[in-house]
């Protein structure tokens, strides 16, 4: 599926969802695959979307919501225009990843898992990306950012974000 910015109209998105369901032959066992793809189309999984998928897969809405809310990868709320994920795996933790998250929470005034009120930025954490050689690290949109010290790393995140905002480029 193309990423969600590529869909121009609501009808395009609906068509994409129908295509996903057909690909999986409306098989209820493919729920997680369907949710992954649907999230790519819409950016997040709204209540309405989950309800629609439940109906199409002939599953109880409670079960679909239960699965969507169980897994960390599924977002029930829209993300910010730019998104930062801080790795808090073991290697990152001992090298200050947890302190980095606290620092970014302080600088942006939002907690981990939240989106800024204007929708411009959201912050999240992940337990190990498996690239421990770069620890500590953060991922801004799709780019890995790494630095020697926590302060320098937080500065780099802010700097990259400012660059992105000034060029007006979406993630």
């Amino acid at each position, binding site marked *: 599926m193309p990423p969600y910015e590529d869909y121009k109209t609501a009808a395009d998105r609906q068509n994409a969802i129908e295509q996903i369901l057909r690909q999986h032959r409306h098989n209820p066992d493919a729920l997680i*695959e369907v949710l992954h793809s649907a999230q790519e189309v819409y950016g997040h999984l709204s209540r309405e979307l989950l309800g629609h998928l439940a109906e199409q897969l002939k599953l109880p809405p409670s079960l679909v919501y239960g699965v969507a809310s169980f897994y960390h990868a599924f977002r029930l709320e829209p993300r910010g225009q730019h998104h930062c994920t801080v790795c808090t795996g*073991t290697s990152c933790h*001992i090298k200050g990843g947890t*302190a980095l998250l606290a620092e970014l929470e302080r600088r942006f005034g939002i907690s981990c898992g939240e989106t800024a009120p204007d929708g411009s930025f959201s912050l999240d954490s992940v337990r*190990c990306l498996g690239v421990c*050689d770069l620890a500590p690290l953060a991922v801004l949109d799709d780019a890995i950012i790494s630095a020697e010290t926590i302060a320098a790393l937080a500065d780099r995140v802010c700097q990259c974000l400012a660059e992105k905002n000034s060029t007006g480029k979406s993630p």
Partner: protein
Amino acid sequence: MTRDELREKFRCAREARTTAGLRISVCLGSPCVATGAETVLRALRESYGDLAVEVIGTGCMGPCSRGPVVRIEDRSGGSAAYYEKATPTTARAAVRAHLKGHDTSQGRLPADLPFMIRQQRVVLANSGICDPESLASTLENNGYAALLQVMEKMAPEEVCREISGSGLRGRGGAGYPTGTKWELVRTANSRRKYVVANGDEGDPGAFMDRTLMESDPHRLLEGMAIAAYAVGASQGFIYVRGEYPLAARRLRQAISEATRAGLLGRHILESGFSFTIRLRIGAGAFVCGEETALMASIMGRRGQPVIRPPYPAQRGLWAQSTLINNVETFGCIAPIINQGAGWFRSIGVPGSSGTKVFSISGDVATVGVMEVPLGTPLRELVAMAGGVSNGSFKAAQTGGASGGCIPASHLDTPMDYESLTSLGSIMGSGGLIIMNDQRCMPDMARFFMRFCQDESCGKCVPCRAGTEQAAQLLHRITSGDATEDDLAKLEELCRFMHDASLCGLGMAAPTPVLGTLRWFRDEYEAHLRAGGCPAGVCDRERKPCHL
């Protein structure tokens, strides 16, 4: 592809090996890609992509923190030169120096670097050698030779016997004998059977399975196909952690290429044996590494474990007999078939045969992936990684959130299943985190407990409530607000969680606490007094409770 065509390919590959010219390999593992390996590869292809110089992208070569890594070698033999932190400019300069016979030492890793030369690569034999995005490259390196041999010469029960004879034990953590598991599924009375590869490598600090899936996906497919042949399955699943998009992409490509070549799918190598593999992408739940939770997730449900027995071999996916092995376990299968059970058993130590891939990270000079015989002392592994950085060795964490730690007094511990268990730790999947003397052990315990609290599926009370209470007690300890009584409560709670939780996650959640208490009780006690943390970590970084 017919069997004769496959044999012909192996023969051509043997002849091609004697061709003259340089081969340049650029590591395309995800750490190297993150530091710019693709740009290096593109630049080298543009400059030297002709017949005399072969330029290929390969899987992981090992020393990830020195990436992007480039290897330059003579195709007709001779030693390989490794270059670290390559950029288009430095890589081009190195190739030029090789072509013109100039000084090639700039940016070159020492030829006797322990990290490289002391490894024994069995599972990762083709990682960093073959192009993971090309079946042809895999076939050149003997890929699928074991599948061919099994289908031509061995009956299913002989395959199971061979695997049992090799002494191979599950590489996912528990160390259950693989041959026994295969035999259970083979003899199970089930309408259909499934083979599942567990690639949900969720332990923080573990990246061995990612390395294998990214570097040599066909090795996994071949191992699974042999397993399917041995147990009588016709459908397989690979469950890949959602955080590993590159591994998923390469596996998807490998599956479709192998299917087109008749090495997977219907009538494999023109026989009556059919086996198809589907990829399932995880959605970020650590508990899905537990086999019953993993099966629930494959079937599109919440990843909540159920009580065993019945084991998956008796009643697994869709109530059918199911074989679940770790990715690395499947990676051991082809070498065992190719070189024999006796050869495999001769590597390692009694009770723990073969090699093990470790991902070593934390306070070491070189972070990366290394494969050594089981039973290699921890001291040797640390030395191979270039020693401890910024201080002296304090402890090594093995087995991730379910494991314990090994203190400096036990640095000579052989890394095998039994030795680690006797120290209150576990082998686990192979993540190894080295800590120097500036690290705080109660802080580590708190970190792992918070991790388990996040990842608890919520089904059983001892784990759901226990991890929360234990994390709060540990937070009080590291904040300097705890009393002797809190410490006693923590220990009692840990024992209770271990005894009463439903699945491995809850049972093992207290292990990091009990492990650090066993070897570093003095640090816990120091936190109870004013002035707190001996390492200075907890005073320096007053963390909010939720982190």
